[in-house]
């Protein structure tokens, strides 16, 4: 479905996008943003799901199972800690966040 050259185009455009998105980030958001991008690569979950779905031997099933557990941990954990961190940023004068 995605052939070689098209894939390269996607790769190139996505790389520029990532570079541009982060180049305007203030230092105070670096940790939350690293955490946020950590959450985004949790999309590996859908790949792990597909891989396990097609498994046909016990060995491959075990590896696929571990893959899905790890990927779900990446996605959920990444989301929870990012949201917790970002919730804490408040402007002076506004009421103190919890």
């Amino acid at each position: 479905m995605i052939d070689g050259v098209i894939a390269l185009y996607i790769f190139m455009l996505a790389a520029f996008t990532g570079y541009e998105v982060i180049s305007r980030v203030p230092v105070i958001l670096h940790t939350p943003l690293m955490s946020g991008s950590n959450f985004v690569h949790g999309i590996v979950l859908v790949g792990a799901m597909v891989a396990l779905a097609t498994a046909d031997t016990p060995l491959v099933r075990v590896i696929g199972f571990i893959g899905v557990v790890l990927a779900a941990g990446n996605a959920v954990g990444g989301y929870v800690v990012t949201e917790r961190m970002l919730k804490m940023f408040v402007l002076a004068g506004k009421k103190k966040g919890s």
Partner: protein
Amino acid sequence: MPSAATLQTLMQLSYLIAAALFILGLKRMSSPVTAVSGVRWAGVGMLLATAVTLAFMGGASSLNYTLVIVAMVIGAVLAWISGKRVAMTDMPQMIALYNGMGGGAAAAIAAVELYSGNEHNLVHLTMAAIGGFIGAVSFSGSLIAFAKLQGLINKSVRFGGQKFVNLAILLISIGFGFMVVSGAGAESGLPVVSLFFVFALILGVAMTLPIGGADMPVVISLYNALTGLAVGFEGFVLDNAAMIIAGTVVGAAGTLLTQLMAKAMNRSLGNVLFSNFGESSAAGGSGITGTQKAIEASDAGVMMAYSQKIIIVPGYGMAVAQAQHKVWELTQLLLDHGVKVRFAIHPVAGRMPGHMNVLLAEAGVPYDLISDLDEINAEFETADVALIIGANDVVNPDARSNKSSPIYGMPILNADKAKNVIVIKRGQGQGFSGIDNALFVLDQTRMLYGDAQAAVSQLIQAVKAAG
């Protein structure tokens, strides 16, 4: 029931929407005002992609389907609980851990592809192997980073010729990767695929073990970028546009972030990874003469209460002692006294970029009181007191003047330009990187020894008593 082709198109379309939500979410996360909505947008994208994948997993056997659900629930519940419970000070190692899990998942996808042997397309095999290799290195490397930050591993393992050993491991794993892709090992009877992954995992461990704790932010950021790349590669293998785009965006963004952090320490990435930082410090620190002069909290409190302008420089010591709430209490007290208080944050203070900002935000410090290095450095000259709380290398003037110092050339906060300097420090020893600090023996510097939380509490009492 719509045709299989229609379903496939629907699935790809929802992946496209998810990818767009990720990019928009990351963009919104780059401003404090929209940051929380940003992570929620990305979260919606993740939910959409996961739900669609689950719904359209039509070809799977019921056994596999059940396994997918069970595995998701286990991973999600464990991560949810740990993510909710972890203290803000432990955030860096949690991110390292979750990141390692992502890398491990990418490696697992590659392993499934390579072990099942269904894939014969050379391009796909190569992509799977590269992604699997990067993912495995990121997995084991992140786990070591986690163990180091969590205090499970205290020593940095270093030995002569280590670079060459690591290079050899790298070459061996590349060699096995080559055999996997070309199918050359198939008839040799060697478990080539297993050996390939084992050596990739060993490489991650061997690369990370010698790196000192002070360099961990750069390393975690690097592994974050690597996991992104690995996910992107596996996305090519699985024809999954959402994985390609999200993985590559993270790979590029993470690489830039890693460079920014390495630059803030005035070192190249190669230098962080391959020079055994800290080893040369014994020679580098020998130029420091003079003694540290202690001060009582009561005297320091009076000095601060009658100052006009105070700049606070927090460091890892504040994080370890969980002193951020006390620091904010002290700040509010000083503000009530009419003292101008600012926070100065070095880009690599703590164990991650922005680590201090997160802790101060947790305590409720408004972010317009917080300035980074470029904004605040000129202001130290007009400050009556620079209060250093558990920071060391980032205020060491040797970085400006002493060419033999290992941190020579690193941009620092000019705390030594302040009229008075008060340093809260646990003892007289060297800091995390093992380098002597010339700031501590200056004429205008006074040392307030003790745990950061206890010391700041004493300062609060002293300021209260002063008026």
